[in-house]
């Protein structure tokens, strides 16, 4: 293998698994260390810089970082990254003064943002300090988009959302609430320098073909529409017996909300096997905890309506089989259909995009799935000044992805308005600094805590089920947060190897607690992976290979289960190893090296 090029900013970025997995590349270990140091405001700002809504995400994020966490590969559970984010939000001081302070000198450019959800608000946050005049349009009376309409208050209190939405809006955003944009043509005619579409995926899937759908419609609701109507207080009750169809997070929110609006026998009924449901495991757990059974392998057959009143639903039982390619097929089990009683049915089987307001004659190109043609790097549509982001760009994903796309679109809009090439993306900000404080002393806490993951306490069930707005999760207190923060392995503190100093004493290889380091003769990667001190079977993790050493061997470090404990560097007599903190920030709009 060739020596690893550690000057490539992506090499060490990939070692920080959590940050690499985060769509917005939040520097996770950096803020976890700040939490451990009781610097909650600073930890909040590290988050705010990257993901704009730390308080919201600390409660509701899909957490792509946690399955990636290195801790999960050396023991059972990853660090509770998401809930530590909430700790930063819960205990922070006055952070507003740490944010860019307006009013900002205008740069003469005007931007329209269609939709007031996470993607649009991210664009607003990034562009407002640069002097753009920003107009935000949303059909509701408040900003937040699906974070407000689809995430129930018992998971995300309105005050938390309001606070973080307002941090953005207070930057001098011109809001146009209760204004549904019904024509792109009209917006285009208003002379904006750029238009950003962040309208989400507002249309819930229905089961229009199912017998009885029409007859029972008074008691059959589309999940996201129903959640929105609860959130905006148009709906405040539901029948005693409720069936929720679907296995995603929306289904979990629907069933748990039903329990709070009078649903006594609430069931989730889903086509797929339990283990393959789309909902996050913790959301399933929370639903089950609230006495909601999840019945899997049941395919809806019909709505049963008697004398114009919904009585329940019929289901066919299926089982999952997998073909050679691993593709799942749901085959009938030959058992008779089963009937479940219901006063109300909530359909939460997915959502899709809908752009009735974009006229085809504007020249906007749509693909065969009726999705606008959007560039995957620049988020630019076929109309150069119109950009997309969030669920509106490539279909429904999650809040953190919408935020990441908002950042990228903001970079594009800024480049576009400055007349620059949209494909010349600004480089990430990177910084690599030695943590050495003295002999065997580091400026980070290099000790490895053995603690298992701490559980976030929840409020009493009788209390939370009686009040829709009572938050279920209580969050970590400061002491537990510290202990949980100590579980973080500081993967951003990199092991840097300087081959010219190495005397090949093998000390690092002998001391490494997880057998990551091997000195051996070079070879092909597939061959090398088998002859290391411990076989490197996780091919998603890189091997760090040094230049040739005097004895003709090379140093090979398998990044997979490195604890970043610094023992290799402490044991090195010549400081050939050093622990250096790597900070990686994706560039935001205006942060590139432009002439000021």
């Amino acid at each position, binding site marked *: 293998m060739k020596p690893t090029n550690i000057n490539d900013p992506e090499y060490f970025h990939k070692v920080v698994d959590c940050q690499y997995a985060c769509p917005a590349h939040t520097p996770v270990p950096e803020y976890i260390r700040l939490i451990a140091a009781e610097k909650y405001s600073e930890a909040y700002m590290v988050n705010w810089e990257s993901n704009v809504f730390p308080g919201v995400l600390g409660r509701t994020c899909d957490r792509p970082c946690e399955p990636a966490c290195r801790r999960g*590969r*050396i*023991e059972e559970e990853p660090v509770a990254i998401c809930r530590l984010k909430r700790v930063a939000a819960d205990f922070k001081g006055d952070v507003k003064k740490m944010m860019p302070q307006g009013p900002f000198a205008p740069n003469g450019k005007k931007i329209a943002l269609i939709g007031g959800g996470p993607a649009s608000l991210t664009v607003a946050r990034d562009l407002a300090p640069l002097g753009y005049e920003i107009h935000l349009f949303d059909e509701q009376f408040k900003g937040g988009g699906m974070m407000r309409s689809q995430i129930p208050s018992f998971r995300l209190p309105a005050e938390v959302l309001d606070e973080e939405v307002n941090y953005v809006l207070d930057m001098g955003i011109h809001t146009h609430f209760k204004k549904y944009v019904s024509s792109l043509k009209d917006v285009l005619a208003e002379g904006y320098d750029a238009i950003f579409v962040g309208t989400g995926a507002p249309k819930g899937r229905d089961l229009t073909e199912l017998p009885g759908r029409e007859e029972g419609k008074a008691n059959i609701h589309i999940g996201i529409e129903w959640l929105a109507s609860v959130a905006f207080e148009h709906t405040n009750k539901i029948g005693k017996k409720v069936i929720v169809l679907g296995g995603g997070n929306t289904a979990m929110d629907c069933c748990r909300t039903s329990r709070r609006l009078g649903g006594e026998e609430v069931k989730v009924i889903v086509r797929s096997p339990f283990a393959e449901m789309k909902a996050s495991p913790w959301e399933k757990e929370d639903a089950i905890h609230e006495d909601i059974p999840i019945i899997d392998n049941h395919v809806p057959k019909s709505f049963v309506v008697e004398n114009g009143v919904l009585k329940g639903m019929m289901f066919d039982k299926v089982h999952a089989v997998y073909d050679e390619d691993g593709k799942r097929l749901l085959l009938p089990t030959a058992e008779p259909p089963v009937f479940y009683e219901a006063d109300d049915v909530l359909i939460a089987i997915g959502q899709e995009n809908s752009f009735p307001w974009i006229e085809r004659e504007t020249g906007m190109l749509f693909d065969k799935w009726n999705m606008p043609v959007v560039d995957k790097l620049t988020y630019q549509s076929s109309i150069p000044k119109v950009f997309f982001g969030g669920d509106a760009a490539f279909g429904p994903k999650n809040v953190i992805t919408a935020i990441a796309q908002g950042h990228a679109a903001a970079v594009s809009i800024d480049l576009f308005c400055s007349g620059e090439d949209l494909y010349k993306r600004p480089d990430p900000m990177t910084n690599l600094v030695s943590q050495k404080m003295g*002999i*065997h*002393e580091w400026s980070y806490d*290099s*000790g*490895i805590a*053995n603690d298992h993951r701490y559980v976030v306490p929840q409020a009493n069930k009788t209390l939370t089920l009686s009040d829709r707005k009572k938050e279920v999760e209580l969050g970590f207190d400061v002491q537990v947060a510290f202990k949980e923060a100590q579980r973080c392995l500081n993967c951003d503190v990199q092991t840097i190897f300087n081959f010219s100093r190495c*005397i*090949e*004493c*093998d*000390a690092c*290889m*002998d*001391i490494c*607690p*997880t*057998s*990551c380091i091997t000195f051996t003769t070079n070879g092909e990667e597939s061959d090398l992976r088998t002859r290391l001190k*411990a*076989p490197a*079977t996780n091919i998603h993790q890189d091997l760090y290979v040094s230049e040739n050493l*005097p*004895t003709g061997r090379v140093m090979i470090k398998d990044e997979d*289960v490195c*604890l970043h*404990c*610094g*023992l290799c560097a*402490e*044991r*090195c*007599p*010549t400081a050939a190893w050093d622990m250096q903190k790597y900070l990686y920030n994706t560039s935001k709009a205006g942060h590139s090296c432009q002439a000021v």
Partner: protein
Amino acid sequence: MTYQRPTFKHPGLPKNNLGYTFKEYEGGLSTLCAGCGHDSISASIVEACFKLNIEPHKVAKLSGIGCSSKTPTYFLGNSHGFNSVHGRMPSVATGASLVNQELMYFGVSGDGDSASIGMGQFVHAIRRNLNMVYIVMNNGCYGLTKGQDSATADEGSKSKAGSVNMFQAIDLAGLALELGAGFVAQSFSGDKTQLIPLIEAAMKYEGFAFINVISPCVTFNNNVGSTKSYDYVRQHIEATSTIDFVPIQEEILTNYKEGDHKNIKLHDGSYVMLNKLEKDWDPGDKNSAFSALQKARDKQEILTGLIYLEENPTNLNKLLNTNSSKPLSKLTEKELCPGTKTLQIINDGFK
């Protein structure tokens, strides 16, 4: 400074026949200087015991005083250990091996502990042919007292402070050979591919097995001009052969051409496999071993590898004909208290 090693280990570590990973053969976290050759030797012992499926409770580690003699704390943490008086490890080993032959004895010593204060003990341990592995971690200086030249420092070797050693060095391997050790080897802490099979073979040898390991002292004897620095040893190292240890269960699969390899069968049926043999050297012939050592000395080379192996070893217990007796610790009341009748017979003998 980190005084505690994290307890996590690599989830994919290979296991030996006993179901242990090499981690189960490790000891406490070393407090020796960073980069000390002794730590590499400890790691080699760990690896050798792991590979040989040694049950940790069947090993006793014995040592004297010095940096080297601290190391038993850093390997085989689940084995027996005895840290004795300076240079007196062989006495303890003699007593231990006489009262319990079921344990494998691992003597660890240094150049000060063996070649100076303990020289008298060292030579008699060889002469009596204890059934043990005797490893000298040889760094040519007194590391624990700031690096004064030891008795194994080469003539002309320069210390860190600049003074040149004017005395001749004691060649421990040559001495062991002279005194009749059945297994004599020499190695370098920075060459684990050679050191590990040597330790494996020594552990399987049923007699006195001596390994002199050059182990650079990074703090006091790794300077330019020293003949025990990493750089100097690497430049002047000369191997008698490459060495592989083939345990009893395994077949020898590699084929080497006639004339430059030799397989030596050990008592338990395992093999020491030597390849790329030096010319004019035969590990079974003491004369050729002497001459190889002398030639290397003349050329200012450090001869490493297996130097001599007596294929029909003997040991103290065999010589004293005590090799069938049970360990003292396992003697029961029946053996220890033979009864009034027997006592009467003994007493009658004195009348």
